[in-house]
């Protein structure tokens, strides 16, 4: 009898009227006592722990970025109301960022795709799952005539069993083309770490540092694991000997907003400054023992004056940074996206890592990470190299079928890669997504996937904060829509088409996970538990601790010369397509909370703007709010000029996130996407796109528009709302 029950009805709210509204909506009402107006539906069969009116908390994992924070979802009457940080998660320790808070909004988003869509006669039309399955079966099933290597997966950063399934699926179709694309990444940093330290994701311990020197690393906003680093930063600030932050960048990032010393640097010259600092340190008695023998000679070329000329940072400031680095140990020197995104990004990051080596930070604040034992679950970290590689491969008609999930390459790829054309040329494109994004609109088959809060999954963060973990994502509520499927369920069904023997037995992804967890069990220190106990414990904890073998850092430092980017009279400025906590790379532009939440530094909401230094602007007669045209060799965009001295005079910064041509009511047709005009230069060593190396020119249009921003004053008008003390006073009061 109860077997017939739909679990949806079963958990359905006891009267959704619990949503409180105040006294009617439109007309004045004083009579609010209603008898027999509201429906109450009781549970058919109650779960023991479900009490109407009392919230229940479940553990899961946030998927808003790739940091893999553990979350607690508050569920009441069958719906998720709020997401909080998981207190026991080693990554975020009970905290969340704003993107994590908006996780529920991605789930309840009104623009979610509610049924599969099939391209018919040029346009996408809603279809049934049967039809979608049939189509999939036709193209990818056992009867499909697939030559080797003709299927490609295009995803974002993907890890855990989803990654394993993708790998398995590729195997089953005889291909190995898994492109993982991610615009906001730290791949160059990883490459340098791997080459210099033999550790692609070294653990960074900011809380032990007395000084952070960050070259454009927005480590509390977009870099690796922001919430984790924010927690560490907090501990560093509150330590008895308060650590300081020096931020060197061309455009102030959110992290730069907390800097004790903020240094504006000419775009693309961070590596030169790093070498100059190394030179200064050696000249001032810091041992160069850990460096190659010729280091001293190589570095000698970077004398103070030369570095100052190249970087635009005054010699006094360089000396100041050098002194701080010398006097405050341990320190940590970080490199961010702006350093990585250059044609010589690898060399620049190497130079920065060199500082860490020289200062003895390796082993103190930069620690070896654990080697994750389950390689098939490890994160497949996305990058922009794959973006270019895919565009190239697709353009050469290498693929018959492309499966896209968790990525929106049509939005993020620079126009010069011509990825959209390449993708269009692929005969069959399947996009598994929640939202009607740009890529989905190009698809031949759109499969609506469940939201994070409805789906199963396991995640292994690329940056393993603290200990190695598998984070578990579990459904916190029944799916909102009948016609959506979990991503895992879809892949399992596709695998079953090819390999019924192995995968046909799994009813769904849940069944698969139960099965694998039974095997996974031995991996942890929970060997004595029964499979069911282990499963339940894991769900409750939201994660499984994995014993990993620690790596060992072996330093292999090398020094390469770095040249400043060549000046170009036609394109005098450098474009900075900066990502920020919030809209991130644009994937959260459909969340109204994040649209209305201002940029942390510029405080702009709901649109695009171009940050330009007042001195540069005045040369061109640009005033605040003027619509300016920014042109590179690859194209042009128009945005409102925002005059600020938090951007270097040689740069113009246009934040990422807006400029969607699809993607639902909150994102569509709002602002511009600076990635579109990025010139497709690459970092020679890693093949990652040099996103921050595009030269642009700026011209005025005769329009002026209001820049929407939160707050109407940049100064306190002498009101002393925020008071500032020097660190000496802090020390005198013993940290209080």
């Amino acid at each position: 009898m109860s077997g017939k029950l739909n679990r949806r009805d079963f958990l359905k709210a006891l009267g959704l009227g619990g949503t409180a509204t105040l006294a009617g909506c439109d007309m004045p009402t004083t009579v609010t006592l209603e008898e027999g107006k509201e429906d109450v539906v009781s549970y058919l069969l109650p779960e023991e722990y479900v009490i109407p009116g009392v919230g229940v908390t479940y553990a899961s994992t946030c998927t808003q970025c790739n940091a893999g924070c553990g979350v607690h979802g508050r569920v009441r009457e069958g719906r998720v109301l709020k997401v909080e940080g998981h207190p026991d998660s080693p990554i975020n320790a009970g905290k969340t960022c704003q993107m994590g808070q908006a996780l529920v909004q991605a789930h309840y988003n009104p623009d979610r795709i509610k049924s599969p869509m099939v391209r018919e006669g040029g346009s996408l039309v809603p279809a049934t799952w049967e039809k979608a399955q049939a189509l999939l079966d036709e193209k990818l099933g056992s009867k499909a005539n697939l030559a080797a290597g003709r299927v490609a997966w295009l995803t974002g950063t993907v890890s855990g069993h989803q990654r394993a399934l993708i790998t398995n699926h590729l195997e089953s179709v005889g291909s190995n083309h898994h492109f993982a694309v991610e615009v906001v990444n730290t791949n160059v940093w990883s490459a340098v770490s791997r080459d210099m330290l033999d550790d692609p994701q070294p653990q960074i311990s900011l809380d032990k540092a007395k000084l952070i020197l960050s070259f454009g690393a927005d480590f509390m906003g977009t870099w690796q694991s922001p919430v984790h680093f924010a927690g560490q930063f907090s501990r560093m600030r509150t330590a008895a000997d308060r650590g300081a932050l020096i931020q060197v960048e061309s455009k102030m990032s959110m992290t730069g907003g907390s800097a004790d010393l903020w240094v504006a640097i000419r775009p693309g010259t961070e590596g030169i400054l790093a070498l100059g600092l190394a030179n200064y340190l050696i000249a001032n008695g810091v041992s160069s023992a850990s460096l190659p023998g010729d280091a001293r000679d190589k570095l000698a070329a970077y004398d103070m004056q030369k570095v100052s000329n190249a970087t635009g940072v005054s010699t006094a400031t360089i000396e100041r940074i050098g002194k701080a680095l010398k006097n405050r140990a341990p320190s940590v020197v970080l490199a961010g996206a702006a350093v990585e995104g250059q044609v010589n990004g690898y060399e620049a990051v190497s130079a920065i890592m060199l500082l860490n080596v020289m200062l003895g930070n390796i082993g103190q604040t930069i620690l070896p990470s654990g080697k994750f034992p389950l390689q098939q679950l490890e994160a497949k970290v996305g990058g922009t190299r794959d973006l270019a590689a895919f565009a190239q491969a697709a353009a050469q008609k290498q693929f018959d079928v492309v499966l896209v999930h968790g990525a929106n390459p049509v939005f993020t790829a620079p126009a010069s890669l011509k990825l959209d054309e390449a993708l269009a040329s692929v005969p069959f494109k399947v996009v598994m997504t929640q939202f009607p994004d740009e890529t989905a609109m190009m698809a031949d088959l759109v499969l609506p996937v469940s939201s994070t809060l409805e789906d199963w999954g396991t995640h292994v963060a690329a940056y393993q904060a603290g200990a190695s973990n598998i984070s578990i994502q579990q459904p916190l509520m029944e799916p909102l829509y009948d016609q959506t499927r979990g991503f895992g369920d879809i892949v399992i069904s596709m695998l079953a088409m090819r390999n019924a023997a192995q995968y046909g037995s799994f009813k769904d992804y849940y069944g698969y996970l139960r099965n694998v967890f039974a095997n996974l069990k031995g991996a942890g220190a929970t060997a004595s538990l029964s499979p069911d106990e282990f499963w339940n414990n894991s769900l409750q904890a939201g994660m499984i601790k994995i014993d990993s073998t620690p790596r060992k850092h072996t330093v292999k430092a090398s020094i390469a010369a770095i040249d400043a980017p060549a000046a170009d009279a036609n394109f005098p400025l450098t474009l900075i397509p900066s990502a920020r906590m919030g809209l991130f790379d644009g994937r959260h532009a459909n969340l109204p909370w994040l649209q209305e939440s201002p940029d942390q530094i510029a405080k702009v909401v709901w649109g695009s703007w171009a940050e330009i230094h007042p001195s540069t602007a005045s040369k061109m007669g640009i005033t605040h709010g003027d619509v300016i045209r920014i042109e590179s060799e690859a194209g042009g965009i128009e945005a409102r000029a925002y005059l600020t001295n938090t951007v270097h005079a040689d740069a113009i910064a246009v934040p990422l996130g807006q400029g969607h041509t699809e993607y639902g009511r909150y994102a569509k047709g709002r602002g511009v996407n600076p990635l579109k005009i990025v010139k497709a230069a690459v970092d020679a060593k890693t093949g990652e796109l040099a996103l921050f190396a595009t030269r642009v020119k700026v011209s005025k249009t005769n329009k002026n528009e209001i820049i929407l921003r939160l707050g109407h004053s940049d100064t306190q008008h002498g009101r002393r709302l925020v008071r500032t003390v020097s660190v000496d006073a802090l020390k005198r009061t013993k940290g209080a």
Partner: protein
Amino acid sequence: MVQWIRTRMFRKYAHGAFHPVSLGVALILAWSMMTSTGFAADVQPPGGVHKGVDVEQPIEFPHNIHVEVNKINCMYCHTYARRSKVAGIPPTSKCMGCHKIIATDKPRIQKLTEYWQKGESPKWKKVHDVPDFVHFTHERHLKKFVFDRDYPVEDVKEVCAFCHGQIKEMTVAKKVKPLNMGWCAGCHEKNGGPGDCWKCHK
């Protein structure tokens, strides 16, 4: 005395009852009558009547039979009352617990069984509804009036009757108490409930 005032002072001008002074006196009297009502006692269920409307329910649940004839405790079915702000409608499984065997020939039970076999719950209509901006919790009220007083739990229906009236006499529940703010506030004052707006308004 009023007559005296009238004759002495308004002999010539008495044009009926409408005098500023007599109006004022009447107001003051009315005022003092209003303000001097009530002294805190242990438990005084609030008075007040409300002429409730008959609510059409999917199944006319006979409260009287369950409560009065079968002597079933309110909290047997409304089981969430002591654990949550809402008392809750019993899950259909609970109804079927008995009615798989008992009274299966009655049309109402057959209707219920029909629902059960369809795998649905009846859409009950809410009778005792408070506005959405009101936070009312059964849990705290039961704690105060039943458990803290060591009131026999078997007789809990008498406590429920404070606000729900004599449900044992009704078939389909009907609102017989006003459940408006003045009524709530009066009881709070008598029984030492919180007088803080934010306790009940959200």
